[in-house]
């Protein structure tokens, strides 16, 4: 017998009688204003939130902070070199990356993005700073609604991202920019 079959046989023998799964539909009924809650929570976990009327404001933001730097984006209306063909390692040195999120979660200030939004999986991690565009109408209350939206999306890789990379491993002092992006700006449109 292989280890697999031995393990499975022993688990089967030792597992208790089957019990039912609980009802999840009673969860996630908290009520609050999703946009305010999202913005407050995102700021509390280290992100910057900027409300915008149109795309030119993002362009202005980037020009003021990253002129002459390496800026990349997956957005069609954004002018950047074709970096999708680069190897993941070659994305080291990206100063700013701009992507669009599918939706945001108010209770924890996170956004959901998957392969189709990312260009390359490494992109939102290896970039020094990250910008995310989020449609206000796509902010939902809790993680329960989040997984309803995700449903059975056929991604290879998907991610809840909440704030910039951080660590508190040295005496519990919070430091932003451990290994991933040092800063996150969310453009609420």
């Amino acid at each position, binding site marked *: 017998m292989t*280890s697999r079959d*031995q*393990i*499975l046989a*022993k*688990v089967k*023998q*030792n*597992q*208790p*009688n*089957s019990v*039912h799964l*609980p009802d*999840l539909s*009673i*969860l996630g009924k*908290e009520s609050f204003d999703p946009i305010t809650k999202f913005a407050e929570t995102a700021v509390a*976990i280290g992100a910057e939130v900027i409300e915008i009327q149109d795309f030119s404001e993002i362009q202005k933001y980037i020009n003021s902070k990253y002129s002459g730097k390496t800026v990349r984006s997956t957005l069609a209306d954004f002018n950047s070199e074709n970096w999708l063909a680069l190897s*993941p*390692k070659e994305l*080291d040195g990206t100063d700013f990356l701009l992507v669009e999120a599918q939706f945001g*979660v108010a*209770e*924890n*200030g*996170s956004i959901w993005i*998957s392969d189709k939004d990312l260009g*390359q999986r*490494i992109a939102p*991690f*290896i970039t020094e700073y990250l910008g995310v565009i989020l449609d206000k109408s796509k902010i939902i209350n*809790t*993680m*329960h609604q*989040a*997984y*309803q939206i995700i449903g059975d999306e056929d991604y*290879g*890789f*998907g*991610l*809840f*991202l*909440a*704030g910039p*990379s*951080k*660590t*508190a*491993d*040295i*005496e*519990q*002092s919070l*430091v932003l920019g*451990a*290994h*991933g*992006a040092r800063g996150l700006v969310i453009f609420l449109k």
Partner: protein
Amino acid sequence: MTTHSKSAEIFNRDFERTTWHDETLYFVRQKRDKAAFQIDDWELLRETASQIKFNVLSNLSEYLIQFEENALKNGIKVHWAADAREHNEIVFNIVSEYFEGNIPHDTFKGIVKSKSMLTEECHMNEYLISKGIEVVDTDLGERIVQLAGERPSHIVLPCIHWKKEEIGELFHKHLGTEKGNKDPKYLTEAARQHLRDKFLNRKVALTGVNFAVAVTGEFVVCTNEGNADMGTHLSDLHIASMGMEKIIPQRQHLSVFLRLLARSATGQPITTYSSHFRKPRDGQQMHVVIVDNGRSTQLGREDFRNSLKCIRCGACFNTCPVYRRSGGHSYHTAIAGPIGSILSPNLDMKANADLPFASTLCGSCSNVCPVKIDIHQQLYKWRQVLVKEGHTSATKTLMMKGMSKVLASPAVFKFSGKVGRMLMDKMPFMVNNSLNLWYKQREMPEPPKESFREWYKKNRK
């Protein structure tokens, strides 16, 4: 081998340090409380999580098969390890086969690894290093203990026992930082640069698994630093080591666990990154190693199987008065703290017989546990088992047997309480002596003049 109480005694010689350790962890516990109190449905969430886990344990073999089937469809290779040794061999063989049986030791630089308590449990680093494969821990806290030649002292906060001055000194020695610089920001930046180089130059990445979803064949890894993702998305080969109890039935169940995990662990609403790995990147290989290592045995122990519900949040560590004042290394096992003291005797009863006694049974652990494990009750039950199986010292056995006699008979209990109060009042030296382990490091409290029972009798109308 040194027991928990011996090591704890040594830890407690530095009173200031012990107090600092205690307070730092209690600070984390308070952050957890604050986060939990903000969720109206917190108790409902805990109950739901607990029920999901009961369902998982009762259908584990079916879910494991389902997970395997779906992971394979997604292009993930699945391996099964009965024990730690097999796990380590599998990891080595995956790497070796990737290089077609010929690891090019001159150019292959080894593995980058993100946090995985399972690989600690399996002593994987030591094994791979003995086979000529370097393993670089990339979580900042784990890198610190690794450079120091230690093991993590906490499952979520691996170097919680280190002071920044000492980390400054360590980094000065290993990473060439300025002597005397102990600024956490400066030191974190140094680690970022040091590890960025490793991420960019390693082909193989190893991660743990927080949750694996049976119906989708995907697995989720949670980090704050982004080290798991930096490792895997830059690698050509991703190996994920997974304890078999990490399975959950459906994707939607992640909502419950992701709401609970970070809030319980550090008081954050969610970890910075909750990464869902479902298919390998183009040109990448992805492997999952499903590990038993005693779990199927624990599943068969009715009194202890609930320990397999654990999601490794560390909340029971942070709240435990014994853990806080004895330090993780006193537990001499990969998983310390209250939950480790239930899991470890399952692996080796004799070697870990001291651990279920490293608790006051105050129950604080069970109160904070996000999946509602009856931790302190299991610790108590382990004590009975260990005494019965003859794994405890003569004093302990005597005490335990005496206690169970006292507790079994209301009349004896009443009487011994009276004697106890009288003794503490009239002859305190009988209680405050070195034979009474409870007296170590503390004064015995003033005994109440009357017991609750006596008080109740008098005051009841």
